[in-house]
Structure formats: structure tokens, C-alpha cells
């Protein structure tokens, strides 16, 4: 049995999840920081 698709699939899902949630969190954090700074300097 060719095991590569199962191993690559597991690692693929994991890396996609970690990279995705990391990028989304970073974007949200920067957006919140920028918005707060803009509101505070009004």
C-alpha cells in the first residue's frame, strides 16, 4: 500500500491549519491595533 498520500495528507492538513489560523490571527491583531490607534488619536 502506498502510504505517501496518507502521510502527506495529514501533514498538509496540519500545516494548512496552522498557517491559516496564524495568518488570520495576525491580520485580526494588526487590524485591531490600527483601529485602536486611529480611534485614540481622533
Amino acid at each position, binding site marked *: *500500500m502506498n*502510504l*505517501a498520500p*496518507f*502521510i502527506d*495528507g*495529514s*501533514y498538509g*492538513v*496540519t*500545516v494548512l*491549519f*496552522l498557517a491559516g*489560523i*496564524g495568518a488570520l*490571527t*495576525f491580520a*485580526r*491583531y494588526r*487590524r*485591531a*491595533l490600527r*483601529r*485602536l490607534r486611529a*480611534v*485614540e488619536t*481622533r
Partner: protein
Amino acid sequence: MKDTALLAARVGKTGSWLHRFANPGRFLRLVQPALPWLAVLSLVVTVTGIVWGYEFAPADWQQGAASRIMYVHVPAAWVSMAGYATLAVCSFFSIVWRHPLADLAAEEIGPVGAGFTFVCLVSGSLWGKPEWGAYWVWDARLTSVLILFFLYLGHIALIRAFDNPAHGHRAAAILALVGAINLPIIVFSVQWWNTLHQGNSISFGSGSKIYITMLYPLIISSLGFYLCFVTIVGARICAAIMERRARGLLLAAAERNS
């Protein structure tokens, strides 16, 4: 003075200590400077663990190369359970001491924990096919982890199900506390029932059944996943605090102008 004494008596010694550290502003001041360092550290450790497991760790003599899935499956499973335990602790603080930070933390832990549980279920399913011949079996361990995933989803939905956010947080906190009973069921399911899922290979008390060349990458990968969880949840809580603060300032400005 009387009010302060009354508050101290109501909150108690432990509650007072927690109130001091559960202040959102203080949390932001403490965590925000650490976030870039945490992000770099979690990235380095996770990449090391994943590359070590995928490329350099030895294959198991029985399972062959499929055992490499362990380096993402096991850490994801551990983090999903630790995440739920943290969620339950936050819910306890929220119900007993009504900490605003505990509510915020619980709200931000839910989606991250659900994501790690999803990764655990998918990688486990992909490991199950070559080993058991099926992607899914209604085994006690698999089913209890699926219930954990549903508990996370229920928590996420319940928090947002009420017009009054306080009611949502309270209902979700009760669900999280009741659902915590599932954690020992997950851990001991492989001992209490005859399961297709293998028993615990790692033991902190009585020695591990896993060889050292496989244990090291597993530990590094797990440490990386824990760091990722802490960093992501920390950043999400900071973002939520800043969003609330910005909203509060805008509301105050609108009230002043009206």
C-alpha cells in the same frame, strides 16, 4: 472604604489575586510585548518538530512510514484536550468571579481548540485507513474525541446565540464545565473499553513505550503545538481587548457628540 472591605470579603483572597491579574488592560500590557517572541519561538519549534517527524524520524517496525503521522496527530490531540481544560478553567473563573478576561479567553479558545481537534480527527482518520482498513470506526477513543469537537462547536455557537453577550458567556461556561467530564473519558477510554485505538505509549510516571529516537521529535512537535496554541490564543485575546476598547471609545465619543 466600606465598599472595598465588602468587595474583599465577597471576592476572597484567591479571588482578589485573580482580579488583579485578570484585568484586561494589565493582560494587554503583559502579553503584547511577548507576542513577537512567542510567535518566532513557536514557529521555530513547530517547524523543527514537523520536519524532524516527517523527514528524519525512523519508521516504526510494524506500522512502517505511517507512524510519521504520529508527530502531528498526537500533539494535536494533546493540545485539543489541554485547550478544553483551559476553557473549563476559564469558565469556572467566569461563573465564580465573573472575570471579563475569563469570558474573553473562553470565547477565543473555542475556535482554536476546535481547529486542533479537527486536525486530530482528520490525521487520525488518515492514519486509521492504512492501519485498520477504515477511515472511521465507532471506537471509544475516536467517538469521545468527536464529542469533544462537538462540545467545542456547541460552545462557539452558544456564546453567540443570545442578544445579551453576558447570557451567552454564562450558558457557554456551563456547557464547558459540564463537557469537561469528557476529558477523563478520552484519556481512559483505551483502558476502560476494548478499543481499536492503541493504548497510551507515553507515560510521565512509569516510563514510555516509545523509543527515544521517536520520542524526541514527538516532544519537540508537541511543544511547538502548545506554543502555537498559546501564541494564537494570546494574540486573539489581545485583539479582542483592543476591539472592545476601540468600540468603547467610539461609543463614548458618539454619546458626547449627541
